[in-house]
């Protein structure tokens, strides 16, 4: 015994500083994100500047990363707690219907629909968690069943509400409440204290961007915008970006909250304990079943936040919205260093994982000579590398004596 306790020297310390960095779960993802960033910056270099670092490009890949990252947070916490949720994509589809249909078909105020939808998300998570707890079946199977059930439900209800269509569209608002066209319908939805948080830009950032445009820090260009007074489209000199997409704000805020939850709170310790070895955690008095239900609720709420961000931007809820997002959420968690077996992982890692995902997905489009078709190959290789790296880290952590 006692080979880990230092018997004498400083030498042990130096090695362990490097080891400690290596054994952080998020280390691999951070290194990977830097690598991908540098790679695309260099690849997209043309005429003395990098297309990948342009204002609009950065906004694009940040927004895409944010959307994956939001569901990645839920998936990471759940995976650390030892479970999976494959119904995330279908929950996105179902909740996008639940939030939009009452607004456009029944004249609800957006905030009412949003609150109801969040409540439904909590209920969906509760169903997942309770079934997993009660049946003792792997969550993989239980949530796989709900992947089909929720998607099917979305289709059935959408068809019933629309008389056979596969999407509920904001178009249906035209003619109600004196709304004359789609842009006005969008304006109606956006002018709600709660839906503002799910559409457009982060609060204050358009003003900031406008200011930076005026003093010349952000390039301006001629853009056609809706004049709020006349309702006409007019051309104006405006900064090339509108601001920080609201999804990025959600992503960063949720990441910070989840890191605090996991690293600092009592519940965080319970999540690790539940995923590491549920029975021993239970023996120590951790209510593991309740922890799991909470985690499933969290995953469903994250999925719903994403679905609302997408619905208010696109103005429609399609039956297939969110398809395959469950796997993207898991990919992000795994690249971020979270173990598939639970009990070990990091939200910060999922943040970098989502950034890697977003940079690759959008970067391939930005680099002109790189065929888009390569995106999935990059992603698959990245995933494999991440899993290998994680396995290696876990071995170090458990076997180093």
């Amino acid at each position: 015994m006692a080979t880990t306790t230092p018997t004498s020297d400083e030498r042990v310390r130096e090695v362990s500083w490097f080891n400690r960095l290596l054994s952080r779960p998020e280390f691999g993802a951070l290194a990977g994100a830097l690598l991908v960033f540098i790679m695309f910056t260099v690849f997209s270099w043309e005429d003395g500047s990098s297309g990948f670092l342009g204002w609009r490009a950065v906004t694009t890949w940040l927004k895409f990363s944010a959307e994956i990252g939001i569901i990645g947070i839920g998936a990471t916490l759940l995976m650390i707690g030892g479970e999976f949720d494959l119904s995330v994509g279908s929950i996105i589809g179902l909740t996008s219907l639940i939030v939009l249909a009452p607004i456009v078909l029944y004249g609800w105020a957006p905030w009412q629909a949003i609150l109801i939808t969040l409540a439904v998300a909590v209920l969906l998570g509760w169903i997942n968690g309770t079934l997993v707890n009660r049946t003792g079946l792997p969550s993989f199977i239980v949530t796989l069943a709900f992947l089909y059930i929720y998607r099917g439900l979305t289709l059935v209800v959408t068809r019933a509400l629309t008389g056979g269509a596969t999407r509920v569209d904001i178009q249906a608002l035209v003619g109600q409440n004196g709304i004359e066209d789609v842009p006005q319908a969008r304006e109606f939805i956006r002018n709600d204290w709660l839906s503002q948080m799910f559409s457009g830009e982060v609060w204050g950032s358009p003003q900031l961007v406008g200011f930076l445009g005026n003093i010349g820090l952000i390039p301006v260009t001629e853009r056609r915008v809706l004049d709020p007074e006349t309702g006409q489209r007019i051309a104006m000199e405006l900064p090339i970006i509108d601001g920080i997409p609201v999804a990025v704000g959600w992503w960063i805020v949720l990441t910070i909250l989840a890191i605090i939850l996991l690293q600092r709170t009592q519940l965080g310790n319970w999540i690790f304990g539940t995923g590491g070895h549920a029975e021993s955690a239970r023996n120590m008095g951790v209510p593991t079943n309740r922890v799991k239900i909470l985690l499933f609720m969290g995953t469903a709420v994250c999925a719903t936040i994403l679905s609302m961000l997408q619905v208010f931007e696109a103005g429609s809820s399609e039956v297939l919205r969110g398809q395959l997002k469950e796997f993207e959420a898991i990919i992000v968690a795994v690249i971020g260093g979270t173990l598939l077996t639970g009990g070990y992982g990091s939200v910060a890692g999922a943040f970098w994982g989502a950034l890697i995902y977003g940079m690759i997905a959008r970067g391939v489009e930005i680099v002109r000579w790189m065929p888009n078709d390569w995106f999935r190959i990059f992603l698959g290789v990245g995933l494999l590398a991440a899993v290998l790296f994680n396995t290696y880290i876990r071995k170090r952590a458990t076997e180093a004596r």
Partner: protein
Amino acid sequence: MAAPLVELKDIVKTFGSVIALNGVSTSVDKGQVLCLLGDNGAGKSTLIKTLSGVHIPTSGQIYIDGQPVTFKSPRDAQRSGIATVHQHLSIQPLMSVTRNFFMGNEPTGANKWLGPLGIVQKDFADQKAKEEMAKMGIDIRDPNQVVGTMSGGERQVLAIARAIYFGARVLILDEPTAALGVKQAGVVLKYIAQVRAKGLAVVFITHNVHHAYPVADKFTILKRGQSYGTFMKEEVSREDVLNMMAGGEELAALEAELKEFERSDTAPSSRLEAGAAAQSAVQDNRG
């Protein structure tokens, strides 16, 4: 004489038609090590699970300080000061020493109204974990080090130190030495003696008499769900305990049987040697 700290009286536990325990009685007092001995299937685990609140006895009564108690869950038993250290199930190897130490009992200080969302006082927890381990004679360099880097014996000690810190009066150790090497087992035995010196009652479950005998004050031997008897250490020798555990007559029969093997071994062994010689000859030819 005052009532013992823990007393089990006529504990019966049945699972359907299986009688796992059939009227077992024993007791353990402060500063005493009770060794629960028995072969596989003798009912050791069932008895321990009954005492630690996992099972509710079919009949019979548990007394603590002479008062009858009923445990409906492991949590109940823990509140009464009974802590169980399972061989593999107590420690999470991928979590840090501190996180393991305070699992389920994280110190959140004044912000109790937040419930489980309360912020854990990390510096306090780190310091306490380090201190409590030091009391058991293990110097943790970094309380944030992953438990997976510690040896099997050290992990047991972590679980024991944790139980003591959270106010255990009775420590149940379920096969603490089973998976350990000779030296490691010695370390754990040393800590058991140390725990006894602190005035705790220890229930030590094992089927290894050689580990049990040096630290035990008292033996309860279980056989097929029944108590074969409870003996103080002065009353019995190591051989007595071993005999009772395996069943004296059965052991004698086994010895006789083994002698038979020895006799029949002598004849075929020469044939085996011949075979080996032939084999090496073949290898020589190949070479």
